[in-house]
């Protein structure tokens, strides 16, 4: 619906501008607070710009270095920030590889091979999407405990190699758009299913593979409940969990460090978004639309 009148257009732009400010304010505030010395974070009325002793604008970039250094604690058992970053990248990277391959395999099996049980299996898949995580949480914890994986990163990325209902659903929508004749012709030519999958279908699916990769990376980067449940040793923490280290300190929360560290954890996601905007948007849109 387009506004016809000039007034209508102005109203639209005005609304957009106001809403944008409202949405951006918190992020700007995050960055502003991260550059202030601690005393200036707790002033009323709040100030936007960090000031130096003579009243000049003096952003404290050193906050970032201090925040990252303090993230893993202090003293001989301090864990460097790089470790948390490495853990997170490991979990995300391995998870993405697992998610892309396993879901592609399963979606292929459910859509490109005409076999009896596939409709039933898909129905079950859909049904599992309704099950809330708390129902699975306790026994899953028990499974990982008996495997001896509590305290390691395995519980965070190994399940990605065994497919996931949501990504199966996403990939299935896409696989169905590829004409059946392509597979048929390849079968007649004597290709086995793996060759059809690997050589023909998969290269056509790069968009949806990218979407799944992106979604899983995002989910793994932001995941908090998983790390809280399964990680017990500080050197194995991911960024999301390490961020919480600042919170419960007896000396009070160092807001400037907390905001700086949060900015560091958020930044890669924003960069990723800018690089892959179209993929993001297309992916989300596909989830909500039928077929």
């Amino acid at each position, binding site marked *: 619906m387009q506004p016809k009148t000039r007034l209508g257009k102005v109203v639209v732009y005005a609304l957009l501008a106001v809403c944008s400010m409202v949405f951006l304010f918190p992020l700007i505030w995050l960055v502003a607070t991260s550059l202030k010395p601690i005393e200036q974070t707790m002033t009323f009325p709040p100030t936007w710009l960090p000031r130096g002793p003579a009243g000049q604008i003096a952003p404290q970039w050193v906050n970032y270095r201090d925040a990252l250094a303090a993230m893993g604690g202090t003293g001989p058992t301090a864990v460097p920030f790089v470790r948390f970053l490495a853990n997170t990248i490991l979990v995300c990277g391995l998870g993405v590889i697992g998610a892309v391959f396993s879901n592609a395999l399963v979606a292929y099996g459910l859509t490109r091979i005409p076999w009896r049980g596939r409709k039933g299996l898909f129905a079950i898949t859909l049904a599992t999407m309704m099950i809330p995580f708390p129902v699975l949480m306790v026994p899953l*914890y028990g499974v990982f405990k008996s495997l001896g994986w*509590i305290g390691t990163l395995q519980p965070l990325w190994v399940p990605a190699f065994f497919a996931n209902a949501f990504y199966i659903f996403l990939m299935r929508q896409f696989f169905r758009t590829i004409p059946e004749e392509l597979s048929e012709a390849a079968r007649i030519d004597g290709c086995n299913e793996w060759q059809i999958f690997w*050589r023909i279908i998969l*290269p056509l699916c790069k968009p949806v593979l990218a979407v799944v990769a992106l979604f899983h990376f995002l989910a793994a980067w932001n995941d908090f409940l998983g790390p809280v449940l399964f990680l017990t*040793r*500080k050197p194995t923490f991911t960024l999301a969990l390490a961020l919480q*280290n600042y919170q419960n300190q007896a000396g*009070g929360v160092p807001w400037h460090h907390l905001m700086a560290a949060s900015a560091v954890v958020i930044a890669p996601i924003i960069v990723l978004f800018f690089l892959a905007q179209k993929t993001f948007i297309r992916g989300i849109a596909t989830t909500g639309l039928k077929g």
Partner: protein
Amino acid sequence: MAWGFWVDIICGRLMMGGMYGRWGVGLIMLLVLVLGCQRVPADAGRVTVRYWEKWSGDEAAAMQAVVDQFNASQDRIFVEFLSMSNVDRKTLVATAGGDPPDVVGLWLQNVYSFADRSALLPLDDFIRSTGQTTTEWQSRYAPVYAAMGEYRGAVWAVPSAPVTTALHWNKKLFREAGLDPERPPRTVQELDEFADRLTKRDPRTGQIVQMGFLPQEPGWFAWAFPRWFGGEYLAEQQIVIGTQPGNRAAYEWSAGYTERYGLEAIRSFASGFGNFASPQNPFLAGQLAMVLQGVWMDSFISQFAPDLEYGVAPWPAAVPGQENFTLADADMLAIPRGAKHPLEAWEFIQFVSTANRQAQRVEELTGVELLCYRQRKHSPLREWSPFFEQHHPHRYIAFFRQLANSPNAITLPKIGIWQEYRRELDAVFADTRLQRKSPADALAFCQSRISESWRWHQRSLERRQQ
């Protein structure tokens, strides 16, 4: 789009040659799985004992000094000291997951519930391996501390640093209000009166700028108010929080502060309080004239408000004739069930529970005395070394030592569901001081909930004994 470009390149390369492609993928996945898989690491050389502790900042540094001393004194065991927030919860989760630390620094309130859940290892066998009976071994501590770790006929934890609480008051503010700076309130009525005189409001806005006393600051001992007023938590295996009259008196007293000064006024005043360990701590900043705090307070005062003139006294009597009332608590060390190195963990705990009785200089302090000296707390041991007694940095350390041994010193009730009970008591305190419920209602609610919980708990224990 840059993303698609890279996906193209990678997929293209992988699919190029049949052989290279498939092997390449296989190799990558193998590498990935090998690198990605982690087992809980095994240590070579010294046995590493993981020790999780709740302290941070200076208090953690004090324990680190003891750990360093232990590590330097022998070469079989290396204690890895980690300071963590929510150490009790994290320990429970880790124990449940089969990967707990070897030594954990718990709060006393955790010990009984953890023991009931079989989350801790009883220390009796370890004690016997030193050649002493439990009683002999425990006799090193002042009686109130020795009794703390004992529960259901076994010793589950030993004290590391004691906690004794007292009324701290700001002498300068007393002087300004026309009160004798050397005379603290001796009864709760006096406490309320003094608080009235010490409360100041801004003449223009009517906002409170200074208060004499505020029960919610720090609010850590609010659970003890019922006992303070002569109430009881458990009598003859029955929960009596809602029925004993002393309990109600306690919460009526604390809710009385909200009534007298106003809910909004207090809320607005309290939201300006800074963090505990900072110069903006309300007592340190002179916003609160009197506060119930622990023996650690002197350390924080020297750090953040060295010019503060203050005094310490027992809790004002809430029940007539109640002399030298205090709450005695302690930080405890325990060994979680499933710890990988319990014997080595015990050796460290042993080290922390001893001290050099002949220490004449600061370098000769060891074990628990070193810890308590650095943390400016009194030692839980019955006997103190000469140096510790005479050169302790805490101005009032002798007073705290005496107070801890007072016959009216109460400690935590040994109830298996104490953590939950305490949470409910905190909820009663919050609900009554925020005027959401009347004390009678809040206590009745607490009573019904906790008696239910108590019943389930008993039933659960019975079931396990079968």
